[in-house]
């Protein structure tokens, strides 16, 4: 930082240390174990309204690192912003010491315990993935911001695969500390699995469709694209000039809440040092806000909303990524109906337990057309079996206009914390 200041530039340093252990079980047996110890730096500089960027894994030569960032100023990438000044941020409880100290043996034993229980109850293949991650992040800039974060996260996913395929049912837990995979989740999985074993081939057409929380990301991606400050700035968003307009069913309230430290990796600042806050995107179906990083907030002459994250749709090396507007802490407000009552309310329809190819199609337009892996078929409120090779298609700006009901509780998933959502009149092809 001192060297950067001497060079007469605004500067921001992002330093990340990540350690993780990943353990995988396939077909009920331990398959793989991998550990990672990684670190790296990124550096952004601003001079005369232009932005420079560099990153490195091993900071061997500080002068060379700074020179790389200064050199990239020549590209004249516009920086319509300054780095934010520092200030007091809410203190969050993001780290669980017990998880960090837990030996890998304990994680392997947890996987074995789940396999042992499920093996006696179902005839499917059991796959389990367990990941424990510990991150340390420091972000400082020349405006006096100096933020640190030490966070832990624990993820366990149990899949039961239907014979002859890799489509199955998933149940997962996501938290900042270790938690035993709950008995009720295992019972839910085994009960649904055993009821769906039979292959059926009903008539295709428009029908009720219950999206599981784990699959809702596919629909949410479309809304996220619409509310993304980049697409608003480029005037490609269908939500342009629609704030204050009722576009969705009043049951839909969607917000981002990075401050909720009950969930793992809660944040009081984004990857650009902007304070995070609870932020409503859709309130009772009415479009409220778009979200921005520093760049697009600057272009729109709006205050930044605290959504500049170094993330990408398909992962990637964090330090190498440029911040972009991202909703990393999405919540859909739950409704009032229990999961099984939602199922009972379906006269003819499907349960979407997994989706394929959610990234295909015209996302920005709100279109979706996804493979269902699997689709569980329901008639008169009872599960009849599963349908192979099914597809569901539609457009969220039509299908989310009317939501039949939302589940009465939310579940943390990789794409956000969501309840199951029951829609009507979704086009399903078999």
């Amino acid at each position, binding site marked *: 930082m001192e060297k950067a200041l001497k060079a007469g530039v605004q500067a921001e340093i992002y330093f990340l240390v990540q350690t993780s252990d990943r353990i995988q079980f396939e*077909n009920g047996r331990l398959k793989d174990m991998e550990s990672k110890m990684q670190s790296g730096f990124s550096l952004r500089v601003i001079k005369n309204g232009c932005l420079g960027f560099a990153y490195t894994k091993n900071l061997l030569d500080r002068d060379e690192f700074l020179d790389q960032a200064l050199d990239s100023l020549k590209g004249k*990438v516009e920086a319509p912003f300054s780095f934010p000044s520092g200030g007091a941020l809410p203190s969050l409880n993001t780290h669980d010491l017990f998880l960090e100290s837990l030996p890998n*043996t304990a994680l392997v034993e947890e996987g074995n315990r789940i396999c042992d229980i499920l093996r006696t109850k179902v005839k499917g*293949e059991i796959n389990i993935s367990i990941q424990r991650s510990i991150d340390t992040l420091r972000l400082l800039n020349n405006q006096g911001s100096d933020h640190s974060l030490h966070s832990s996260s624990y993820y366990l996913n149990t899949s039961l695969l239907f014979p002859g*395929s890799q489509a199955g049912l998933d149940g997962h837990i996501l938290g900042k500390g270790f938690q035993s995979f709950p008995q009720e989740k295992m019972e839910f999985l085994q009960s649904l699995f055993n009821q769906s074993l039979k292959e059926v081939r009903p008539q295709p057409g428009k029908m009720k469709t219950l999206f599981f929380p784990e699959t809702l990301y596919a629909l949410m991606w479309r809304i996220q694209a619409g509310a993304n400050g980049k697409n608003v700035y480029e005037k490609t968003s*269908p939500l342009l000039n629609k704030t204050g307009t009722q576009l969705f069913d009043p049951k839909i309230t969607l917000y981002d809440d990075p401050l909720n430290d009950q969930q793992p990796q809660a944040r009081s600042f984004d990857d650009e040092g902007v304070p995070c806050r609870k932020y409503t995107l859709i309130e009772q179906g009415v479009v409220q806000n778009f979200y921005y990083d520093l760049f697009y907030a600057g272009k729109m002459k709006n205050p930044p909303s605290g959504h500049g994250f170094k993330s990408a749709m398909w992962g990637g090396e964090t330090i190498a990524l440029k911040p972009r507007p991202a909703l990393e802490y999405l919540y859909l407000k739950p409704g009032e109906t229990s999961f099984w009552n939602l199922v009972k309310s379906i006269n003819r329809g499907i349960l979407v337990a997994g989706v394929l*190819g959610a990234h295909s199609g015209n996302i920005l337009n709100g279109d979706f057309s996804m*493979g269902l892996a699997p689709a569980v078929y329901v008639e008169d409120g009872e599960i009849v079996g599963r349908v192979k090779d099914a597809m569901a298609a539609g457009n969220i700006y039509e299908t989310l206009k009317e939501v039949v009901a939302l589940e009465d509780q939310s579940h943390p998933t990789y794409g956000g914390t969501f309840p199951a959502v029951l829609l009507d009149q979704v*086009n399903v092809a078999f």
Partner: protein
Amino acid sequence: MDSQKLNNILSKVRADYADLRYEVKKEVQLVYSGRELTQISSTTTDGYVLRVLKKGGFSNVVFTKEQDGENAIRKAEENALLMARYLDSPVSLAPAEVIQDTYQPTIEEDPRSISMEEKLALTRSYNLRPLQKEKIVTTQIQYLELVREKLFINTDGTHIREDLVTTRLGGTITGQDGGLTQTVRVGTGGSSGFAPLRNQEPLFDEKTALALDLLKSKPVTGGSYSVILNPDLSGVFTHEAFGHYSEADLVEDSPSMLEKLQIGTLIGHPNLSITDDPTRPSQLGFYKYDDEGVPVRKVHLITQGVLTGRLHSRRTASRFKEPLTGHCVAEDYRYAPIIRMGTIYIEPGTATFDDLLALMGDGLYLVDALGGQTSGENFTFGAVYGVVVKNGRMGEMVRDINLSGNLYHTLQHIEGIGNDLVLSRLGGCGKGQTNIRSCHGGPHCLVRGLIVGGR
């Protein structure tokens, strides 16, 4: 690269086998969003991957700093022993030839010797072509140059230096008319340097015209169709629907899938042959050694409908008692290698495009892939656009096409195989790691009974 440093680290491992890969990754990226340049970077990163086989347990540790070497060794040995305790049968590795080699690929114009100004100018000029059209509202065009300088050593005595140079220039073009937005992909690239990126103006113009045409087209009607897949879609089908299940690590612990995928089983139409061949020169998927130090070779996966081969790592080749193929590849220094397709394609047949149209009668001609995914026998992938075919004649253009089908059914219903073969110039397979050199292709193919999602 200092192989002495690597030897020092590896010599401290107490195990039955160990290997260590050190990589320097050099990346140049330029990104235009619409008319604005939003990223320019030129960076170098590096790291290590250590794999240890000890008492039948096989484990790996990824680390960034040389001084973490000893810590990594301790952790890898601990993990391996822990695995050994829980495994039903110990891991063994198929014996591989000991190799000492330095290999540099043949490059037409090394991108490292082209100035940033020139890269910027070329990217800008392509990006501006679509933006001149009124209804093109934005673009996202990226120049990417990625060089992996790899050094691999193992305790058998293998020592390999190989560079992989990947270039790509492309992205998306978005058109808008009223409330309708349509995005098409555009781009080119490969493993042979900067030269293939030049003179691509016709490609950018063609895709711009396509984005505009799509704004005038209608959504497809959902249902079951006969389709002709263009070479890009044939390739994506081959990769997604079948190719992943020729990767031994994806099927080894799935007894019910493996049962259907026994070598010697008639699995496809008698006209159908599928091959993976990364040794084909100057194409995206080219490499000489995989990230286990095994030389890659051509593998006949399906020969005239019969399953004849599988892609392997040293571990799976030993488990399956099948020959090594050299298909164990990592994204970069952040990952241990996993089994990947290299260059997978359907072998061309004899039918002309007109023959295929006539043979199909009614159906859809589908062009260019928009991503895909598989879950065993069920697969899904998108097409950029389609053309309705009636009585063997091409009619109107349709959009919003996503396809789904069943692997076994589809392999048996590839009824017509064209006499052309086109391999992809861009790749991006995400099997836990991203493989930007994943190359696929094929001829035009006629397939019966695919489900189109529609709207």
